[in-house]
């Protein structure tokens, strides 16, 4: 399956350049693309596969090489574009050579990523087989394909690519996210294993291989003397961080065990680098010329390389911390600083040939605390995910390339004696070294490492890409047996990564190694562990011991008094870690509560998931799984959330309404802005607005079968339509009159058609305004194409019954025709109404809207317009509105919808009444001044309307209503918002 996917990808890439490369030679330049495609399509896979691949590895070098070594295919490719474009201008240019390098790199990354996807299709499979094994196997297959097609392996893991790009991404990730406390708690053990253990392995392996050579176990053809074997021993003995990470991350042994093995693999880099360099120089000058002083230089070199590397890392950590103090204004590049400084730490160490891995690791460990505190939450997430992504892809590529590199006939200088001896020796000496050192260490450790730990540590001594890259770097001139060493290294790497990687999980299961419980600490643990630290420090002080805790406390004092002051922002410096922890726990709980479908608003249902989550989840394979498995039910998977039915919807609706209410002000501001743009359009809108306002009012009146109902409504509407509330009271008596003025149902529809086009320009602006989910609406009642957005919007209230998914704008796709969803609504709703609605809102909000003052004067108008908009001719009494709605107007429907809301809200509203009136007071008063300028124009249209309407020509009337210029209203109107 994998191969298939890959082949598809590659052939796709390859086939793409057929027309120009493959085809022309066959068919001649004159012929176009089409005939050649079919011919070449059948041929390519085998022949062409190598073609794109050769360039993958180290793009530049490899490219040149492939061009040189592969005359047939690449030559065509190179020349194709130039030779065959002979005459005239070509519409489509083939610029392969231009995009080649990045293109191929991108495709490599894609292949690697797709490979990962494919691996994880089968859950059962991936739990048994580590990913690293699969990737190596994939690499072997790919390498095999290349070899078959090409007769020669063009690619291998280029040491430069590996050391400069792939390794740093992995080490950077490892260092930055290294659990610092755990690392330093076990620093003694880590250093011992890394330094003593690696030296022991290197020397023993080297000497024993030499002994084996002398004994004749290793073939004569392997031309190597003691120095060569020591060199080989040095590079093969170091535990590899990449391999350890890849394998141990899937095994989930307990933290202590993991940090010891992993820490060792990182720290032993210094030893490996020094030994490697010392031996190389010894080999170069020849053993006989090495003087005693050189051995001491070697030791000095070790100190310089390791301590120097560490210092470089720490210096960069300080710089990084210091820089991030001042990134408040440029949050967006905070992550970049982190990447750059950590990477620079690595490069700088390489520059001075210090231990780059140590440098990067300590830069990460050192900077993490301060950087994480300084940068924003978003940057933190970005850093985390970018680092993980890069590290993951780098790891994938390393293993694939390891596989590919193995398939190379030229490299296979096989000697069974050497290979088997090496395998045996590294395993035996690893085990012996671990047992010996552990015995010593356990005399000092608080929690001794028991036998099971030792077995896992011995077995976990994986060799990997570092060894391979180092052995490839050997100079074949000086190290005669390089080919044998390369082949042996490959076997060792494959054996450790694949065989040991495959079997370590069953082993760990069988030995019942304590697993890590990836579980967040509870607040109690946070508190008490801090207390424990203090207790231990105090006890050490009392007992007069200057132990680990004593020094740790000293360091913390120093950190608090000096370092943190230097490296942390002032705002952050004040913050307490425990408080942060507390907040994190709370947030976690909140998230899980929400995800469980709990209601945030009702604190009664709030549980404490962190308590429930005490159960451990040993087999957690990734973040998502962790979150899912975690007892608290935290789940970040959006789709899952979306699919939670029932309570969740209510929840959403409610949340949404809360948001809508809270977002009220911004919207208002927006309104003013909007209307400023909007006004220049001219009178039309004013008219629209009037119409709309009347519609709104009419809607209101339909509800006012009982007095308090109306009051409710007023309350709910108070902010937007404070003015309406006033007039309602006066309206009442005349209501009956107004009802008689039957009004054209048609109008809104017409206007919709007319102004549909106009909506487009404003659409975007409207989005911000149009009303969020309305709970009150019942979608079924509403005709699809009706201006749904209009109804209910003012009535939104948290207590009203949620009607369903389709109400929620963000669930638009769920409901069949999103009836009231903001964005869609823009298209559906007659623009004029929309505009009018928006305007009315803005105008009502803004004190100066002209029509508003007018209305109180002519209460009827409102009633009329109410009839005019939505109500069909058959419409009768206000109370029965619901029944008559069937016809068209969306507004008609608003009536019925609102009623339930009303009732429910009654009690609350009643209480609020007093306050609401007060609130409205300023509005009204402020309305007056501008209104006083305008009142005359506004009244007339309404005034005239009743008459016309009564005349039985509702359409005309309404139109006149729409068209009627309400002079002067426009200006103040536009200004109104701004004044607000």
């Amino acid at each position, binding site marked *: 399956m994998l191969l298939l996917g890959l082949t598809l990808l590659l052939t796709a890439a390859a086939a793409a350049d057929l027309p120009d490369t493959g085809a022309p030679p066959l068919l001649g330049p004159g012929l176009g693309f089409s005939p050649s495609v079919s011919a070449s399509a059948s041929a390519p896979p085998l022949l062409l596969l190598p073609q794109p691949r050769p360039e993958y590895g180290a793009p530049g070098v490899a490219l040149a090489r492939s061009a040189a070594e592969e005359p047939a295919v690449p030559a065509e490719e190179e020349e194709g574009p130039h030779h065959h474009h002979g005459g005239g201008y070509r519409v489509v240019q083939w610029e392969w050579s231009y995009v080649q390098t990045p293109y191929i790199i991108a495709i490599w990354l894609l292949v690697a990523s797709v490979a990962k996807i494919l691996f994880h299709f089968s859950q059962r499979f991936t739990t048994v087989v580590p990913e690293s094994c699969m990737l190596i196997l994939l690499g072997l297959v790919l390498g095999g394909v290349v070899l078959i097609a090409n007769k020669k392996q063009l690619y291998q893991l280029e040491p430069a690519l590996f050391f400069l790009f792939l390794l740093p991404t992995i080490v950077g990730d490892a260092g930055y996210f290294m659990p610092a406390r755990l690392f330093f708690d076990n620093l003694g053990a880590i250093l011992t294993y890394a330094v003593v253990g690696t030296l022991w392995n290197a020397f023993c392996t080297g000497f024993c291989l030499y002994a084996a050579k002398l004994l004749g176990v290793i073939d004569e053809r392997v031309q190597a003397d003691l120095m060569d074997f020591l060199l080989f021993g040095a590079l093969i003995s170091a535990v590899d961080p990449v391999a350890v990470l890849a394998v141990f991350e899937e095994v989930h042994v307990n933290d202590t065990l993991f940090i010891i093995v992993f820490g060792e693999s990182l720290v032993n880099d210094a030893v490996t680098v020094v030994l490697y360099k010392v031996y190389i120089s010894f080999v170069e000058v020849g053993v006989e010329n090495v003087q005693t002083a050189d051995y001491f230089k070697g030791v000095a070199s070790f100190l310089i390389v390791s301590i120097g590397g560490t210092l470089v890392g720490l210096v960069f950590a300080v710089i990084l911390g210091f820089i991030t103090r001042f990134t408040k204004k440029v949050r967006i590049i905070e992550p970049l600083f982190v990447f750059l400084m950590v990477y620079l730490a690595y490069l700088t160490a390489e520059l001075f040939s210090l231990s780059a891995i140590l440098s990067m690791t300590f830069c990460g460990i050192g900077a993490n605390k301060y950087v994480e505190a300084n940068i924003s939450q978003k940057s933190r997430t970005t850093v985390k995910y970018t680092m993980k992504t890069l590290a993951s892809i780098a790891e994938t590529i390393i293993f694939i390339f390891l596989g590919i590199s193995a398939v190379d006939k030229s490299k296979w200088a096989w000697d069974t004696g050497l290979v088997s001896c090496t395998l045996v020796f590294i395993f035996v000496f690893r085990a012996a070294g671990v047992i010996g050192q552990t015995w010593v260490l356990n005399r000092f450790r608080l929690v001794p490492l028991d036998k099971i730990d030792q077995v896992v540590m011995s077995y976990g001594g994986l060799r990997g890409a570092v060894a391979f890259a180092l052995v490839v770097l050997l100079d074949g001139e000086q190290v005669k047996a390089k080919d044998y060493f390369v082949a042996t290294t490959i076997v060792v790497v494959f054996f450790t990564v694949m065989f040991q990687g495959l079997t370590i999980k069953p082993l760990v299961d069988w030995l019942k190694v304590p697993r890590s419980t990836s579980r967040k600490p509870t607040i109690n*643990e946070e508190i008490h562990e801090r207390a424990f630290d203090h*207790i231990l420090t105090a006890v050490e002080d009392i*007992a007069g011991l200057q132990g680990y805790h004593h020094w740790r406390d000293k360091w913390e004092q120093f950190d608090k008094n000096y370092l943190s002051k230097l490296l942390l922002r002032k705002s952050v410096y004040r913050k307490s870690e*425990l408080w942060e922890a507390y907040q994190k726990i709370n947030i976690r709980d909140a998230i899980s509560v929400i995800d469980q479908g709990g209601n945030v608003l009702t604190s009664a249902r709030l549980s*404490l998931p962190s308590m429930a989550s005490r159960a451990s989840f040993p087999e957690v394979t990734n973040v998502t799984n962790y979150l899912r498995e975690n007892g608290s039910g935290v789940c970040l998977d959006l789709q899952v959330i979306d699919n939670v039915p029932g309570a969740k919807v209510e929840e959403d609706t409610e949340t949404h309404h809360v948001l809508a209410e809270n977002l009220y002000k911004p919207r208002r501001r927006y309104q003013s802005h909007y209307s400023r743009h909007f006004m220049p359009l001219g009178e039309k809108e004013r008219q629209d607005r009037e119409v709309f306002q009347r519609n709104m009012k009419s809607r209101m009146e339909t509800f006012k079968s009982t007095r308090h109902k109306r009051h409710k409504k007023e309350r709910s509407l108070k902010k937007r339509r404070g003015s309406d509330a006033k007039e309602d009271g006066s309206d009442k008596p005349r209501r009956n009159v107004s009802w008689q003025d039957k009004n054209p149902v048609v109008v809104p529809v017409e206007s919709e058609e007319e102004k549909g086009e106009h909506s487009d320009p404003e659409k975007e602006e409207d989005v911000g305004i149009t009303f969020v989910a309305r709970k009150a609406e019942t979608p079924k009642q509403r005709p699809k194409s009706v201006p749904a957005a209009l109804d209910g919007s003012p009535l939104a209230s948290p207590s009203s019954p949620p009607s369903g998914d389709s109400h929620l704008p963000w669930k638009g796709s769920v409901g069949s025709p999103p009836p009231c969803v903001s964005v869609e609504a823009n298209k559906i709703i007659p623009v004029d109404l929309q505009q009018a609605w928006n305007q009315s809102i803005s105008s009502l909000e803004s004190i100066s809207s002209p029509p508003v003052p007018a209305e109180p004067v002519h209460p009827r108008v409102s009633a009329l317009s109410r009839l005019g908009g939505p109500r069909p001719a058959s419409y009768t009494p206000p109370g029965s509105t619901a029944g008559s709605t069937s016809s068209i107007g969306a507004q008609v429907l608003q009536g019925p919808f609102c009623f339930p809301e009303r009732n429910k809200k009654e009690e609350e509203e009643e209480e609020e009444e007093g306050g609401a009136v007060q609130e409205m007071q300023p509005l009204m008063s402020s309305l007056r001044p501008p209104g006083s300028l305008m009142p005359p124009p506004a009244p007339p249209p309404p005034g005239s309307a009743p008459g016309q309407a009564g005349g039985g020509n509702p359409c005309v009337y309404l139109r006149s209503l729409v068209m009627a210029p309400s002079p002067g209203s426009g200006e103040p109107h536009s200004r109104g918002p701004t004044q607000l």
Partner: protein
Amino acid sequence: MGSSNSSVNNIPNAQELMQETGFSAAHILRLHERFEFLDKHKCGQLRLVDRPTNQPQDFGAVQELALNPIGDSIISAFFSPGQETVDFASFVRILAHFRPTDRNQSRDGAQQEPANSSIRKLKFAFQMYDQDRDGKISRAELLQVLRAMLGIQVTEEQLQSIAERAIQEADLDRDDAISFDEFRKSLEKVDIDHKMSIRFLR
């Protein structure tokens, strides 16, 4: 070990102490030196407070303790209820709590819980919180420790909410306080042996 034994013999009940606490003779000797250093009055007892003068207690000689935010609470946990002095035997017994757990020893001493068992370690920590020795960590007691540990970094409100949260989390029987059992349960995932042990020099 002859030489050290001879000096250990000067210490009263040294053998029994070694038996009981698992400290080696060298440990006892070393601790005795420390004890005598702290015991300024040479009366064989360390005092919580110097009675007549209310001068800083004997533990005040340890300068670092002054820096320790919860130093006072820890010291008072050294004294059994009502006592204001601690003699060498008690001093050693209390320090024995912090001996790393010895996996072998726990088996033969099964009849009596050794001082360095994780339960006893927890008990000490619990006493550190439970200043009034009523077997429960009340909200006020927790707040006091929190306040000492966090100092000026957080506001009183934040302290309150942290304490509230902690009690809510650990309090299983809803009595608004943390009993020892609840305390133990809330920490059962923590490697107490590791987190509450120090290495005594031999």
